């Protein structure tokens, strides 16, 4: 409509209004749109490989992994009869029909060899129940009615309301229990959400610790990197390139080599302690503990992440002309004011980029804390690794990872609001 009235305006009211058209009589507008969409499709074809690559190698596996944090059908898929009973009898205490359903499912589980799988699922919510399932499944074929008495005769714990509560919550494949557990919470036998006992509260404190550590590491990196980047940026190119190699050399060295070098340097019988004892600065009986604790984690991670701060800072500082600061000085600004009001604002995009890079890398760091962190220097990623590799509770690992991801995205959003994501310059 818009172009029609435009045409009318141009051609005047006494001339018949005809839309512009191509030589083969099609409207120019449709022809143009068709040509443009063809070009767009062709452009899409160009980025398609990358898009597919990201989808298959990144979005799908991560999505599938995160799905596990709310979805676990080990119980519901292998205990269909009992799950159906739970569906039909919400909130009801187990009766003979429930025990009969339990026994029939356990018999099937015995035949399919899935009793361990079922027990493991319930064990996530109620520790100590896995072996009850495997033991009961072994005996299930010989059980005779009344099943309630027969099952309770195997192990009186089968009458435990907490166990039935755990089975009920496992009978639906979708559950929020893993998120509760990842936040140090659980459900009591009445189904209310409560915090776990104090001796088992571990995840929340480690989430906090992870973010505090990452913040501290980012701050130290910034303080160390700023003068270095400034020097590199102001030196003549020949010299600064030479010095740049010193920054890049560790960057190119294997992570494990750098981490183990720190172990050699900082352990109690290590180079630094030996030197301090030899010079008499430290008493041989009280050697400094700088390794296998938080100190070790922070030192090693600062060293490893430092180049990620220096490089963006350098890239931003290099093109800043020295004239601005000189002009400020000549107009009477003190050196501090000139730095604060003239130089620093120009380097903000680099600080933003470096800080974000270092912080996000630090949040997910796993190898270095595992090697040098000892007991007190562990981060949340080490617990994700524990659930991936040792406890095999991938749902729990996924829940922890999802919370970590959400927290990082939240921080990123805050950062965007406060600093502005356009204010970032990587080089």
């Amino acid at each position, binding site marked *: 409509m818009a172009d029609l009235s435009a045409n009318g305006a141009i051609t005047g009211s006494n001339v018949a209004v005809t839309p512009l058209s191509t030589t083969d009589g099609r409207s120019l507008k449709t022809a143009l749109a068709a040509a443009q969409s063809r070009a767009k499709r062709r452009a899409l074809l160009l980025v398609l490989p990358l898009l597919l690559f990201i989808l*298959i*190698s*990144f979005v*799908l*596996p*991560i999505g599938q*992994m995160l799905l596990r944090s709310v979805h676990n059908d080990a119980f519901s898929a292998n205990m269909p009869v009992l799950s159906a009973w739970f569906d039909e009898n919400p909130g009801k205490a187990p009766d003979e029909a429930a025990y009969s359903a339990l026994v029939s499912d356990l018999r099937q589980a015995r035949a399919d*060899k899935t*009793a*361990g*799988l079922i*027990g*493991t699922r319930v*064990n*996530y919510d109620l*520790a*100590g*129940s*896995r*072996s009850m399932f*495997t033991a009961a499944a072994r005996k299930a074929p010989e059980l005779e009615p009344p099943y309630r008495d027969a099952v309770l005769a195997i192990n009186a714990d089968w009458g435990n309301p907490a166990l039935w509560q755990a089975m009920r919550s496992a009978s639906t494949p979708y559950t929020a229990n893993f998120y509760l557990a990842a936040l140090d919470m659980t459900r009591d036998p009445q189904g209310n959400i409560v915090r776990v006992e104090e*001796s*088992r*509260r*571990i995840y929340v*404190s*480690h989430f906090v610790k992870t973010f505090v550590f990452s913040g501290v590491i980012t701050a130290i990196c910034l303080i160390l990197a700023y003068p270095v980047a400034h020097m590199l940026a102001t030196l003549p190119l020949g010299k600064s390139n030479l010095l740049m190699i010193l920054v890049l050399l560790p960057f190119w060295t294997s992570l494990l080599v750098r981490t183990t070098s720190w172990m050699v340097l900082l*352990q*109690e*019988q290590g180079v630094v302690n030996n030197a301090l004892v030899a010079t008499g600065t430290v008493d041989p009986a009280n050697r400094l503990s700088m390794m*296998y604790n938080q100190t070790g984690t922070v030192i090693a991670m600062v060293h490893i992440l430092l180049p990620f701060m220096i490089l963006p800072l350098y890239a931003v500082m290099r093109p800043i002309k020295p004239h601005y600061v000189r002009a400020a000085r000549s107009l009477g600004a003190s050196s501090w004011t000139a730095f604060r009001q003239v130089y620093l604002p120009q380097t903000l995009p680099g600080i933003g980029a470096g800080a974000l890079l270092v912080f996000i890398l630090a949040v997910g760091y796993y*190898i270095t804390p595992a090697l040098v962190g*000892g*007991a*007190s220097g*562990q981060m949340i990623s080490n*617990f*994700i*690794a*524990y659930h*991936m*590799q*040792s*406890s*095999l*509770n*991938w749902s729990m690992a996924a829940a922890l990872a999802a919370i970590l991801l959400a927290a990082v995205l939240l921080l990123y959003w805050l950062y965007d609001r406060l600093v502005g994501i356009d204010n970032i310059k990587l080089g």
Partner: protein
Amino acid sequence: MKKFLALSCAFSTFAFAAQADITVVSWGGAYEKSQVEAYNKPFMAQTGTKITMTSADNPAGPIKSMVESGNVTIDVADLEYTDALRLCDEGLLEPIDPASLPPAPDGTPATEDFLEGAVTECAIASMVFSNVYGFDTTKFSDQKPSTIADFFDLEKFPGKRGMRKTAKANLEMALMADGVAPGDVYATLETPEGLDRAFAMLDKIKGQTVWWEAGAQPPQLLADGEVAMTTAYNGRLFSAVVTEGKPFEVVWDGQVYEYELFGIPKGAPNKDEALEYIKFATGTQRLADQTKWISYGPARKSSLPLVGLFEDGKTEMAPNMPTAEANMKRSLRTSVDFWVDRDVEISERFNTWLTN
């Protein structure tokens, strides 16, 4: 790294074409050497199948991600009992038919020849290892530690301690040190009070403890002087003493022993060869031969009489086995059921305890 493996499942199409060579993952150090000498070399000579041996802090670690991503690169894994059971429960290991195992030389079928519990649905035990503690004799001149209680007694025996960074074995040792009879340890640990009691014992030495993770670490910690005494796998300490001449001594009192098993991950690229390897390695003679290189007890009864001298040709191996009578006076076999049930709960508590 392992997460990366799981996530890169989409790339499994790029996996290299399977070769008939098998990959065995074990624990490194002196233990791995004993397997190379006793199993791998004769197996390669006999069958021509090449064996690649790699090591991990715990070979059970990568199996689940490998199986789920369909990119299994391990043929045989050397597993702890609880891990083997848990992996088997989750359907991550190939079942192994016990009837296919070779009988003892006198014709006794394998199922009777193996020690009780050594043959499971998915994994076959090769040997018995033990968690013991050892100390540096140069650090204790007049009085030497001799009981498990001494390990937890900082007043009588000052000095740093080393312990594995897991709850398993440590809690059992703590209770035995506190005077609980080995037979009552697991019944005690199942009660909240018993668990508190074990942690209270660990509290006594917590401030002086260095935590280790890989089996090769504790002898190194002792040798470096980082600790005065440490828990360790008995074979590692034995190797350090006999082959490297270190001044260490093993205390058998309060030992916690368990089986070590071979399993095949589900979908292993060379399953048949892997099974052949396990049958070969858990044969009577091979198990007996292994004791020539490390002091772990064979899992077959028929291997015991064949146990001879260490590779140095002079050290009698029988008294250095966890299963030797003198070493078994106060000892405990790890309860697999207890740990598979409670591992996560107790590990959470253990980790909380560690960081506070």
